[in-house]
């Protein structure tokens, strides 16, 4: 299987560009904003301002490229590592920070934003994307659902059930597996004996495509095709994006225990952002000043989100009782009283 590729690491095209230079610049800026968030969150965790954080550096093309192929009202169902994708589909950075601060308001997507809170359990969420898209179709709408997950998630039983339902009911679901090489310490080849994760699609009666996950154009293009199939009732698609997690699994992980620095350096040469920059340069659509402007704008956007998140007054101690049911039950009321009484 040859992974789909459009943009080479040196910025030259080996296929047809799926969008124009202006769009390439917009998506480049979005990837830069994503990485700015990622670095900021890692730094804040070190300062004790955030709880454990799962960095996604290196996976920006997967996340921005795939979401770029969605309509603003389509569904996105991702994980703890998919902040850039969530933001690009309308989830505010402020809420992404709040979630990592350990504040439940971080889980709230604004009205009209069809993005579910990040899944922390591995593998449980893909089936929700199946139900979401299915319900859209049953209600006569043509929204589709994109679900993001890692290579490790394909080992969970729920992955099988999600893929199977999607195949059987031809639901408008796009399964995008970000194969970033590792599930915590476990390399991909210890996760499955299949030669390619994309091969799994065969068993569920849906197309399986492998794509260069650090190629923004390729990711965009295969997702766009999958979205078109889903929207016109042709059913689900499984996409395996070959990428790499540059950072540790989370800020508490010591990646040196299970992988070589050389491997990381090797993947850095295939950086998804550098690749688009090279393309823009080759096409006279890039200069230092614009890069600086883009970086500054990203920095300002992220700093503003941090400030807004940190300025929010923390929840009172008893707010937990008001989040559980539409109306607090008698048990919630009793327990709220007990907490007030005894602390």
């Amino acid at each position, binding site marked *: 299987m040859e992974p789909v590729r459009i943009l080479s690491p040196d910025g030259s095209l080996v296929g047809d560009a799926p969008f124009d230079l202006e769009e390439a610049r917009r998506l480049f800026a979005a990837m830069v904003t994503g990485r700015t968030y990622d670095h900021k969150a890692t730094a804040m965790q070190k300062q004790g301002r955030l709880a454990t954080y799962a960095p996604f550096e290196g996976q920006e093309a997967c996340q921005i490229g795939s979401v770029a192929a969605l309509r603003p009202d389509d569904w996105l169902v991702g994980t703890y590592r998919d902040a850039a994708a969530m933001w690009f589909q309308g989830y505010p950075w402020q809420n992404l920070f709040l979630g990592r601060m350990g504040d439940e308001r971080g889980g709230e997507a604004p009205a009209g934003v069809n993005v579910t809170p990040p899944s922390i359990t591995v593998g449980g969420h893909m089936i929700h994307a199946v139900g979401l898209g299915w319900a859209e179709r049953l209600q006569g709408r043509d929204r589709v659902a994109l679900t993001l997950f890692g290579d490790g998630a394909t080992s969970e*039983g729920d992955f099988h059930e999600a893929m199977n339902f999607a195949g059987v009911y031809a639901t408008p679901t796009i399964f995008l597996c970000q194969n970033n090489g590792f599930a915590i310490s476990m390399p991909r080849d210890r996760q499955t004996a299949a030669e390619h994760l994309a091969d799994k699609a065969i068993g569920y009666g849906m197309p399986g495509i492998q794509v260069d996950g650090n190629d923004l154009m390729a990711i965009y293009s295969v997702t766009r095709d999958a979205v078109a199939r889903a929207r016109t009732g042709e059913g689900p698609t499984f996409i395996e994006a070959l990428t790499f997690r540059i950072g540790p699994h989370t800020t508490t992980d010591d990646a040196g225990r299970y992988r070589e620095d050389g491997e990381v350096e090797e993947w850095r040469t295939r950086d998804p952002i550098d690749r688009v920059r090279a393309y823009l340069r080759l096409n006279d659509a890039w200069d230092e000043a614009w890069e600086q402007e883009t970086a500054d704008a990203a920095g300002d956007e992220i700093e503003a989100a941090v400030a807004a998140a940190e300025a929010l007054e923390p929840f009172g101690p008893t707010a937990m009782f008001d989040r559980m049911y539409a109306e607090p039950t008698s048990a919630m009321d009793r327990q709220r009283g007990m907490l007030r009484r005894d602390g």
Partner: protein
Amino acid sequence: MAEMNMAQAINQALDLALAADDAVIVFGEDVGTTGGVFRVTDGLQETYGAERVIDAPVAESGIVGAALGMAIAGLKPVAEIQFLGFAYPAYDQIVSHVGRIRNRSNHRFTAPMVIRIPFGGGIGAAEHHSESAEAMLAHTPGVKVVVPSTPIDAKGLLLAAIEDPDPVIFLEPIRMYRALKQEVPDEHYTLPIGVAQTVREGVHASIVTYGSMVRASQRAADLLAEEGVSVEIVDLRTISPLDEDAIVATVRRTGRLVAVTEGHRTGNMASEIAAIAQEKALYSLLAPVERVTGWDTVVPLKRTEAHYVPGPERIAAAVRRTLGT
């Protein structure tokens, strides 16, 4: 003797068990190369090889189900689930198969296996990393559920669990992994499953608890001691089967009972402890039994978690109520 924390004591128990019995294997996500997310299995794969300290795919149902098959076929697997909040995909295997195989096969097939699971809150982790749903496991027929509170107990109870002819779920309080060091004997020893221990003697009231709540209760007892109240603390150490005699004995001694758990309030271990006290020691009770518990809410995230997990103040307030002070 060496001074060690609970993570190290468990590591030593696993090391001894692997060394003593070729049938013992360790099996779980990231247990090998990295030595587990809490480093509890650190170094074991280097010593015993990847055939006996096995890194598993991310598949909890698979880990427990495969461990059951291995156990039936003669191995003694010590499976690890990374956090109790990730054990739910394995519940079907635990409830439907692990706890039933002996009964289903009329003793022909058995499951001499251990499932180690870190659990409990207090570290401000992400969602699902602070669960205290041990009552669900204690509610499951056919499995024993052990919860150590100290390094010494952890080692002796884990070795007993590995040697037990039946499946044992071994819940490790995350907060206690590195919170406390003790002089732990180097050699092999076991502590009996199903036997509680009085960890503090007192005369005015009893606290019955387990896991990380033992330490919170000790702190509460210290607060109360300053007020002249003497509290007895019973550490259950096993929550299934419960040491009913120990619960009844302490109630008879002090006449007042506070049952403490960080599990959700409805149908938790404290409810069971209270029921035993009223069944077996009603006439010794001088005050209604108090339950100090987590709430019937999802465990809140870092910012408000401290208001969920019972602390010394909440426990002390309950003791005072039993005393009418």
